[in-house]
């Protein structure tokens, strides 16, 4: 989208008066190609297409109509911004779709990163300082001009989800691809799951024996990644499920009840012996009483108590 910004500046300088329609045309064209490209490349399972109400053209018309009714003089500036707005809408929907469809079991990081990148780009575009033609900054008109501030809150909602999922840990730099470590983990995970499936029907102890190596390797890899802080929600979730599966079948039993209890009760027995032997054998500490000298010796504790009795 940086290209778009540069173009916009250039055109604004050269074709001040009559280039507006042309620019919007270019924009739409470029966006349209991008969108279709995204869909084709990265969404093997996109099951919902963008609803009709949000088709770019109708959406724009709808908005322009509404706004131009009220503020006809702002037309020039808003035209460009509305374009951005509609793109934002599309990408928001796409991303939300993707997130929802991969919610359970969690595979959002693996599948939605391109959508997220696109979504983030458009928001950055809107919020960049450079003003479009007509010297109007879309940042002001779209983001901060009303109390609701819908776009920022929509954006921050999705961004928070993305951050708490910690997807960046599983992706390469600039979130262009899945990282090697993640791919490696997914491969290992697959191995284990296949193994589990294979022995599911049979005896559980056999499953425990046969799949132990695969599972242990997976567990080690996971621990290593945990140490490196390269975990994202996908991996955590997958590991959790696997662990549950494993523990359901193969958990270590309490084998040593007797020795542990024996050692503990022996320890508990020690103090009893200790105190008892002290009581019996240690000589009791005595204190030598000293009689204070008082002016009146007969006046002592007994006198005090007499008085009170």
């Amino acid at each position, binding site marked *: 989208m940086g290209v778009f910004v540069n173009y916009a500046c250039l055109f604004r300088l050269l074709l001040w008066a009559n280039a507006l329609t042309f620019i919007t045309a270019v924009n739409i064209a470029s966006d349209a190609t991008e969108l279709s490209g995204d869909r084709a490349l990265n969404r093997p399972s996109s099951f919902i297409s963008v609803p009709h109400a949000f088709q770019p053209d109708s959406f724009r018309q709808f908005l322009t109509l509404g706004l131009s009714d009220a503020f006809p003089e702002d037309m020039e500036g808003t035209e460009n911004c509305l374009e951005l707005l509609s793109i934002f809408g599309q990408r928001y929907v796409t991303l939300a779709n993707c997130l929802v469809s991969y919610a359970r079991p969690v595979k959002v990081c693996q599948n939605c990163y391109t959508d997220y990148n696109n979504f983030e780009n458009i928001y950055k575009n809107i919020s960049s300082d450079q003003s479009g033609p007509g010297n109007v900054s879309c940042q002001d008109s779209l983001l901060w001009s009303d109390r609701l501030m819908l776009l920022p809150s929509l954006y921050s909602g999705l961004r928070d989800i993305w951050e708490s999922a910690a997807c960046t840990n599983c992706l390469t730099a600039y979130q262009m691809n899945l990282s090697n470590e993640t791919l490696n983990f997914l491969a290992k995970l697959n191995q284990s799951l296949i193994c589990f499936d294979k022995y599911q029907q049979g005896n559980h102890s056999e499953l425990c024996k046969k799949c132990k190596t695969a599972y242990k390797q997976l567990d080690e890899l996971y621990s290593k990644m945990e140490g490196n802080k390269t975990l994202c929600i996908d991996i955590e979730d997958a590991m959790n499920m696997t662990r549950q599966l*494993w523990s*359901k079948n193969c958990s270590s039993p309490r084998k040593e009840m007797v020795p542990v209890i*024996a*050692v503990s009760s022996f320890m508990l027995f020690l103090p009893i012996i200790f105190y008892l032997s002290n009581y019996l054998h240690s000589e009791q500490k005595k204190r*030598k009483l000293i009689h204070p000298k008082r002016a009146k010796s007969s006046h002592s504790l007994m006198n005090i*108590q007499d008085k009170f009795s």
Partner: protein
Amino acid sequence: MANIAKKVSWSGKNDETRGERTPLLNGSEEVRYNRQLSGGPIFHIGRLSTVDLEEDIATEEDPVRSRPKEIPHNEKLLSLKYESLDYDNSENQLFLEEERRMSHMGFRCLEISRWVICGLIGVFTGLIACFIDIVVEKLAGVKYSVVKKNIEMFTEVGGLSISLLLWVVLNSAFVMVGAIIVTCFEPIAAGSGIPQIKCYLNGVKVPRVVRLKTLVVKVCGVICSVAGGLAVGKEGPMIHSGAVVAAGVSQGRSTSLKKDFKIFEYFRRDTEKRDFVSAGAAAGVSAAFGAPVGGVLFSLEEGASFWNQMLTWRIFFASMISTFTLNLVLSVYHNKTTELSSPGLINFGTFDLECVQYSLYEIPLFICMGAIGGLLGALFNLLNYWLTIFRIRYVHRPCLQVMEAMMVAAVTASVSFAMIYLSNDCKPLKMDNSEEYPLQLFCADGEYNAMATTFFNTPERSVRSLFHNPRGTYNLLTLGFFTLTYFFLACWTYGLMVSAGVFIPSLLIGAAWGRLFGVLLPNKTFIKPIWADPGKYALMGAAAQLGGIVRMTLSLTVILVEATGNVTYGFPIMLVLMTAKIVGDYFIEGLYDIHIKLQSVPFLHWEAPATSHWLTAREVMSSPVTCFNQLEKVGTIMDFLSNTATNHNGFPVIVQASGEQSGKLCGLILRSQLIVLLKHKVFVERAHSRLHQRKLQLKDFRDAYPRFPPIQSIHVSQDERECMMDLSEFMNPTPYTVPQETSLPRVFKLFRALGLRHLVVVDDVNKVVGLVTRKDLARYHMGKHGLEELHLAQM
């Protein structure tokens, strides 16, 4: 009426004894002999100044009364080893001269140096707190990770009893080191140190309590005992450490290291030192809990009789500096230099904003919790009281004490292990988990044992997780068993010969049952669970339990409010502490008071015991009193001072008027002053013979402070024994006096408010009749059957 009758009969007897030279008088023959030589008529001198009695010791010569009677140790004793601090300033001529010499600028400098000292106290206390914190963290980290690795290794293949033994051995080893250094090098460093500091601030000179050696042993000891996994905290010792730092820094030298920096010489006396010690204690509290105001109030609550505005402000300064230093150093250590986010050793963490509220309906619940805390606290104190008596009577040899401590450590470890082993409470691990050493044991992979978070952790961390972990982290059984075990472990641990505090264990017990309370509440009632946040109840339970055990009021409220950083809870915490104190006091005293009593310290409480107005100074005082003449023979003084049966500290100085038969009071001189005079041989004859002899200054007295040489180390030749000493220049010319009829509460008030050490009782013509000291007052206390008198004992 009885009172009056008694007085009449007494005065009658008085005349009688005067006439017949009194079997009551129990002065040594030697003394009488001296007296005769000095020329006074026998009877009256006998009455006034035969041996005696400042610190109330019976002489062997008395055949009837001094047959030593031996009884087992109990709490109704006063020990002779404790003396008073000389808080009252001796305004002798040397002092006046020095004051005259001192310029206006000099006083300014003194004031500034007081501030500097307070700053230094804060800095050093903070640094010590950091040191303890970091070392404990490291050692405990090593220990727990070793044990954890071992447990993980043996969980599947079997052999967990080996892990148990490993844990036991590690714990015992740490505790053994801690117990050995305490028992062998400095037994006074045992325990939390708060009772000792309380006594010091009360005006009792507890031997060796503020020495450098004590500090070193205390710091190392507390590290060992916390790392050794005992049910103890490091907060109480921090207060003691702060006090020692203050006593050391303010003197500008270390007698132990024989290093004198030649600074702050003016502050080398008990008055100044004690003020600084209160600042040090405050700095200690503030470093321990991140509660500077709480620290100031702690000093105020424990040693408050001698306060003024400027001192309070200075103490506050020391507290703030201390918490800031701790904060700064720890944040540098944790690589968050600018954050300054760890103000205290214990960090309760801040409570979330949503759950800080409490509603009106909860107040009765809080009060109820306070009552429970008071009951449990009283039970704790009672058990600990019996245990302590047993320990004093039977477990008094160092090797036994070390063994006992090791045993407690071993049992703590094995009980904890058994609890963890048998627990079925598994919780899923979370990403932002606060548990540092989650143990899986028999839980499914990815889960941890909830019991292990309470036992397999340093106590501070356990408190924090009880306060802050969300609802559902612990199930009921876990909490119940934990409370029960930890209660007995903590009770058993306090009073061992290791340096360790009781704050954290109490908080932990309270937090556990408080949380239990909070978890049970929505189950059993129809209350909306929104406000029944278990963390909040954990906090209230912790406050109730701690209040029930130590019975502190104002300072504890503020400390808890500051440590949680939450003013909203001020009111409920106050209510809880009040209830806990009221309920607890009904059964037994606070833990610190019990230990002070069991150590037989002559501790003066705020008020004289009720219903003691009928006691007068005449009955309270010690009599007869050893007096010196203003011009006294060296031999006489030497004999008095070296008499091992009497370790009196203050001697009234009398002047013999020519016409009178006995002397009138003209001053008071202290043993320490006499020793310095004898050491420098300030005799009248020598002054005549050697004109160039340097005049004695106040500095000479300060240099000898605080460890005045014993009288045995001073040698006086036979010739010198015949010399005379002029005491008039050195004695305090205006000692406080009271007439014989003054009531006990009045005398008590003078003592408490002025910090007196000696109060001379005089008759209507200003003749010395007796002397009241701290022990004479402290022996009266309210028992179950009214006023009781404590015995004096040698120990």
